[in-house]
């Protein structure tokens, strides 16, 4: 039967790094689709950039802890998905091992910086807007 269908006789569990990246891209993709489409639906279609201001974000979005968790999920899962995608593109076009290594190190630092920045802001943002000087 196995020979007829071409299916392997035994399932081999491959657990190397590249295979896990491959799995992550697909599984995180499935998670990001509803999260990101929901994000776009709420912020760009139901509301618009003209409704978004500092007070609105602090009171109505980050005022609810659930939205902070939602945004954190987007930050981490979509961020990692995106930069692993860039990594894939770079590996396609940059063949010099030295140059590639430099790009990867810089990119890893960018990812860590963005994750820290976003996570600290999501945890630390106040639940009441602070008084800010009027911007002309």
């Amino acid at each position, binding site marked *: 039967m196995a020979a007829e269908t071409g299916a392997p006789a035994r399932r081999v569990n491959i657990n190397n790094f590249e295979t896990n990246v491959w799995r992550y891209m697909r599984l995180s*993709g499935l998670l990001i689709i509803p999260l990101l*489409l929901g994000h776009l639906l709420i912020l*760009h279609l139901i509301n618009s950039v003209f409704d978004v201001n500092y007070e609105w974000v602090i009171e109505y979005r980050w005022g609810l802890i659930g939205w902070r968790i939602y945004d954190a999920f987007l930050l981490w899962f979509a961020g990692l998905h995106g930069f692993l995608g860039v990594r894939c593109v770079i590996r*396609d*076009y940059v063949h010099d091992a030295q140059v590639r290594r430099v790009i990867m190190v810089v990119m890893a630092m960018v990812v860590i910086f963005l994750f820290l920045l976003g996570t600290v802001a999501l945890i630390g943002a106040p639940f009441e807007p602070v008084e800010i000087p009027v911007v002309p």
Partner: protein
Amino acid sequence: MKGLLTTVRELFRYRGQEGQLAWMGHRLSGLGTVLFFTFHVIDTSWAFFWPEGYVHALKLYKHPLFLLGEMVLVLAVLYHAINGLRVVLMDFFPELWQYQRRLTIGGFVLVGLLYTPAFLIMGAHMLQGLDIL
């Protein structure tokens, strides 16, 4: 870098048809979204670190050029989501490979169907927000 040149040149020469187009679109929409994501995380974090800067950033997002960028971004995300879903389905269920061509073109059609109302709604927001309507 030679590979990059080959990709660009063969985009017009190599007859990969809808499959090549889908792959190219996935790559471009992904890269564009990552670029926006980077700026978006930085400016959104200012809501905590630098509220004045956040107010400035939101003003910038209301500029007509950024509103056009928003429309392109939504298209990029929508395409990446639907084409990505097709890739996931085909990877996990290889029996779908025989419908590869139909699924790819169906994905393009679905993107068009979903993007049309989104485009109209964003267009209406834009015209209202800019006091044209």
